[in-house]
């Protein structure tokens, strides 16, 4: 591959004018030069750790002990898959995913339907609604702690409870997960709204005109035109948020730390506890991480496929 090639075909005009022959980097050189740093970094920081992690998952390594890793085969995996406790954590995460994603999809879609016809301040209102989505999840969790406080927090206050009379969202094991769901929906409904809005705005007006002339009632129009057109984007939103639900860490750590007890111990949180302080069971943690990874890859596959289907249609 020639790195340097004398200017001949291209650039001959200019060099003819200036009378200088220039050496320039060939296109191929530039191509690889530009991509190489990115690829190298990604491989080093993603691929390599991935394999290393795989290796570790078959060992009983602990990061704090001086001992070298010892091979235990599928021992870690067996341990995890037979651990009742861990299954409940998966179940908790699953419940949280279903509740949060379900609610934010409904709410987000509803908001998009509200905002689709532009009115004077609609851009401004839309931006306001989008603010929660951009905040740091852990910080969000933290200040919602204050808001959920049964004495001095405004959540109960606004719901109409007298001071101290309302439920203690973060201490009651039955309610804690719902508290997490509420905050999650607060943060991410705008995301679904954004996606749906773009889908709704892309529906050409003349489809509705044709439908009106064809005597379709508003409900018929919604069912047969609006919904099908928005469906692909809704799907993407659902998949994306589901993936995020299984990775959820920051928000829970800020809000409840996994408590009370283990009522809000989502799987990613538990993973942190296993692999880092206090347990430092690195090998076991790696195995768990891989199981979660497989789950996420499966869902991600669906996500990528719907993304490309949409791109193909656009």
């Amino acid at each position: 591959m020639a790195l340097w090639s004398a200017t001949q075909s291209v650039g001959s005009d200019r060099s003819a004018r200036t009378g200088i022959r220039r050496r320039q980097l060939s296109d191929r050189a530039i191509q690889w030069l530009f991509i190489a740093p990115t690829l190298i970094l990604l491989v080093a920081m993603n691929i390599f750790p991935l394999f290393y992690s795989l290796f570790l998952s078959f060992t009983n390594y602990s990061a704090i002990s001086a001992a070298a890793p010892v091979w235990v085969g599928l021992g870690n995996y067996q341990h995890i898959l037979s651990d009742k406790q861990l299954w409940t954590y998966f179940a908790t995460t699953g419940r949280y995913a279903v509740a949060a994603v379900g609610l934010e999809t409904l709410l987000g879609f509803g908001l998009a339907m509200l905002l689709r016809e532009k009115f004077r301040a609609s851009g401004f209102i839309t931006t306001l609604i989008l603010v929660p989505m951009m905040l740091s999840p852990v910080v969000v969790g933290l200040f919602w702690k204050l808001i959920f406080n049964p004495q001095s927090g405004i959540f109960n206050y606004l719901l109409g409870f007298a001071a101290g009379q309302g439920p203690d969202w973060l201490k009651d094991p039955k309610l804690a997960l719902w508290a997490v769901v509420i905050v999650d929906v607060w943060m991410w409904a705008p995301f679904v709204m954004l996606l749906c809005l773009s889908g709704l705005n892309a529906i050409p007006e003349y489809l509705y005109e044709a439908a009106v002339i064809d005597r379709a009632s508003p409900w018929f129009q919604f069912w047969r035109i609006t919904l099908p057109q928005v469906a692909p984007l809704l799907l993407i939103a659902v998949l994306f948020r589901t993936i995020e639900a299984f990775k959820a860490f920051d928000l829970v750590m800020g809000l409840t730390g996994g408590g009370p007890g283990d009522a809000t111990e989502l799987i990613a949180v538990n993973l942190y506890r296993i692999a880092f302080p206090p347990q430092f069971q690195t090998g076991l943690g790696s195995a768990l991480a891989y199981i979660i990874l497989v789950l996420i890859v499966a869902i991600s596959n669906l996500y990528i496929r719907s993304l490309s289907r949409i791109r193909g249609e656009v």
Partner: protein
Amino acid sequence: MEKSQRRQRAPIVEAIRVDKISGGTRLVQAIRIVLAVVYAALSLIPVLWIGMTAFKSRPDATAVPPKVFFKPTLEGFVSLLTDRAILLEARRQELLQHLDELPWYQRLMVQQGMEVTGPSQYVGRLKNSMIIAGVSTVAAVVLGLLAAYAFSRFPVPGKGDLLFFILSTRMLPPVVVTIPIFLMYRRLGLHDTHIGLILLYTVFNLSFSVWLMKGFLDEIPREYEEAALVDGYTRLQAFFKVVLPNSLSGLAATTVFCLIFAWNEYAFALMLTTDKARTAPPSITTMLGRGGIEWASIAAGSLGFLIPVVLVTFALRKYLLRGVTFGAIRQ
């Protein structure tokens, strides 16, 4: 149009714009607007509440029932950003004598019975956040721009697969990658260093940055560069002279998204740093004051942390859709 004709209009659905058909009656539209505004207001109440709490005094912040009207003070900010020592009576008298010569924050604290001794740990953490977020963003945007350009303009072998690979790195749960990186860093002495986090953030932002910038670059017509090439510029010169100026808005959007990610990042910072290079997010959660939770300080910290992001959300609203879907959906 006479009155009688207007009354006859009852059966028709009156359009909102003079000639639009769908959209419902004026009444329905008004209801929509009201609902949207109500939601926006409700959804911002938590943020506003935190804003207010940041300016409350300690007793006000934990008042039961919660106080809506209060006397604002900067106590929360001061205790967040400074270290204090409890004043012994003798020293207290001494300071009270020279009260007017003291800077305003000292005066505030003296009244509480404390003396400011210097900036708190949090200030250092904030500085770390700024440095790490800033440097990693610049790196991610620059490298991402270059790679995106290559993908956009050249027939890179295996382009589709490579791009997919880049996108998929974003799908990984951080925890999977953290464990090995934690070990790696420890071995290489990168644990708890600025470089370590910068490297990691750069990599994570890279996948995002490449996809987003590619979307923007794809929209710049190739004809511009081809014209430059025909005029005698080299490929590199064409890149700097033609492509770069046209991609500024895309660059800006990407920069800000990357900044927001790096700024908000918690999980990696938590696991890979302990003290020297620790950024703000992991620090905020552990800010327990000298006698229980310092809500005003936490609120102040949260507010200070969130304001830049809120401002930037406003500035970015045009690009938000692209950003959150990795530029995959063209608007």
